[in-house]
């Protein structure tokens, strides 16, 4: 079973103190399997601190950080063998070109000589920086550098990916491109652990969330479960996408479904539906929509549900 093990990221009693100040306090968290987990919490909550320990940029005061079961501090090279990380906003050696910087990382990660150049180029295309491949990084803007950083983290097709606010500094198009990249990665059996303040981003791409504040883990689980557990309202907003534009008559029918309190168009083929009854209510709504044969192709709790939960949770604690 050992070599069939699923990718995992595990914190055991992870504690980090800076002098008297405790930035991280006995964090216990085990993420296992191919999924995308959002890491949420207010400024100063300890997200970056956690991710830095997972890349051995800082040492834990107590406890352990394991990637695929290997202690990151004790055996860094082995633990990070199959891991790609982007922590905060790194600067890149200014006299290197974008391609050289990526080939350097590819070499470090052990990508065979013949493939390095090709992989660096496809990584550059992935972040839409191919045209800048041979320009030195020193003159790049913040967002351009961050695109290269994203490309670097994904080199070598790692199975565990740690991202600390990866879209920070990116323009709106860049943000949505990076979101798409992450969504595609999800299809390839990856474990993605990503800190973010953008709740719509998290609810769009993540399956689960871990919530942290004052260095303590407050909740970890599937987004729906967390939303259900911590939201006060019994109404949930669900985003539903359809394969074709909806006639008003269909809209009218949907309004009539039991438990639905509000239906709003959010695009040509998208609706926001307020539904009562928590998860069972959502289940019923989905089966009704499907039985109506009106072309449902997407169904997920809206970002605002997560936002609501987030605001409730962090209000309660502080």
């Amino acid at each position, binding site marked *: 079973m050992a*070599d*069939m*093990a*699923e*990718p995992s990221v595990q914190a055991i009693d992870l504690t980090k103190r*800076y002098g008297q100040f405790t930035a991280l306090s006995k964090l216990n968290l085990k993420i296992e*399997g*191919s999924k995308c987990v959002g890491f949420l919490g207010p400024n100063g909550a300890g997200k970056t601190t956690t991710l*830095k320990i997972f*890349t*051995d*940029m*800082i*040492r834990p005061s107590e406890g352990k950080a394991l990637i695929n079961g290997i202690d990151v501090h004790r055996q*860094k*090279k*082995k*633990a*990070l*063998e*199959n*891991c790609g*990380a*982007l*922590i*905060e*906003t*790194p*600067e*890149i*050696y*200014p*006299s*290197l070109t974008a391609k*050289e*910087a990526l080939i*350097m*990382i590819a*070499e*470090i*990660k*052990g*990508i*065979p000589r013949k493939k390095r150049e090709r992989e660096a180029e496809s990584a550059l295309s992935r972040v839409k920086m191919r045209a800048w491949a041979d320009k*030195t990084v020193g003159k790049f803007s913040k967002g351009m550098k961050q695109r290269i*950083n994203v490309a*670097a983290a994904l080199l*070598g*097709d790692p*199975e565990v990916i*740690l991202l600390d606010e990866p879209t920070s500094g990116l323009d709106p198009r860049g943000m949505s491109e990076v979101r798409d990249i992450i969504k595609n990665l999800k299809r390839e*059996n990856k474990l993605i652990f990503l800190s973010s303040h953008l709740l719509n981003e998290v609810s769009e791409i993540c399956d689960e969330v871990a919530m942290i504040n004052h260095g303590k883990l407050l909740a970890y689980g599937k987004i729906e479960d967390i939303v259900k557990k911590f939201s006060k309202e019994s109404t949930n907003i669900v985003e539903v996408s359809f394969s074709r534009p909806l006639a008003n008559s269909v809209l009218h029918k949907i309004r009539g479904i039991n438990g639905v309190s509000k239906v709003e168009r959010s695009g040509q083929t998208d609706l926001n539906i307020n539904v009562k009854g928590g998860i069972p209510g959502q289940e019923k709504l989905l089966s009704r929509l499907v039985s109506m044969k009106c072309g449902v192709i997407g169904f997920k709790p809206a970002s605002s549900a997560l936002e609501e939960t987030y605001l409730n949770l962090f209000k309660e604690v502080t």
Partner: protein
Amino acid sequence: MKAQHTSKSAAKLPSDAAQVLTIIKYFFLDYFRSRRFFVLLLITIAVGLLITGVVGYYRPQSFLSSDLAFLSNFWGEWVSFVIVLSAVFFGGDAISSEFQNKTGYFLVGNPIRRSTIYIGKYIAALLGSIIILLVFTAITVGNSTYYFGFGVPYEFFESFLFSIVYIISVMGLAFLFSSLFKSNSVAIIVTVILMLFVFSLIETLVANLVVTEPWFVLTYGSEIIRNILISPYPPAHTSSAHGVPFSIATYNASVPEGLIIMLAYFVVSFIAGLTIFERKEFT
């Protein structure tokens, strides 16, 4: 259904030695292309041409009496300056910049030991300095050839080797300071002050006030670079001028002593710098 995960074996991590080579390659490239390298090259050439001009114009007897005398005054007197300058340029902020400029964030999160990064950067900086040293060597030999014809005395080869040992140790020290401080400018200033002022001050004070051999001072050991070009080799200890309050004492390290001092400085500072870098946090 969860897809079963099988560990990928496509990419095998390179050995530490292979990763050191990678680091050397890219940092050498980074140094070589930097404006800093260009400035250092200009300074070295300017210093070389300045001495060339002064000697050519004034034709001082001290330089022109013999080829050894020429080399000891030209090379022996100035090469330490070139070496210290290149150690400061290439090593002064080599490690601190990884923290202050946040470039370390790009590299350290990868499957690579910190010692690999340190060693690789050290060797890359050394190679950069050796290029600068070679430029100064070329200017020296060019002048010597002009005045004394082809061929340099074999003492010059020894002196050249000693100067390589000196770079190795000064660079180790520069890396230690750049590892000790998180600020680039502090690291650079401390290295400069130590190498150009503090060491020679201590050397003079110890020799004259305490009247002991300053065997613990790096620049004392490095004087073999010049002394090997003096014939006969200067005596271990002289003291003179008995009338004045202090006697003026001079000490000269023998070649083995000089080499041991320089290598000891390298070993101690390299290990200390590496240990500090291993433990330093990217906060």
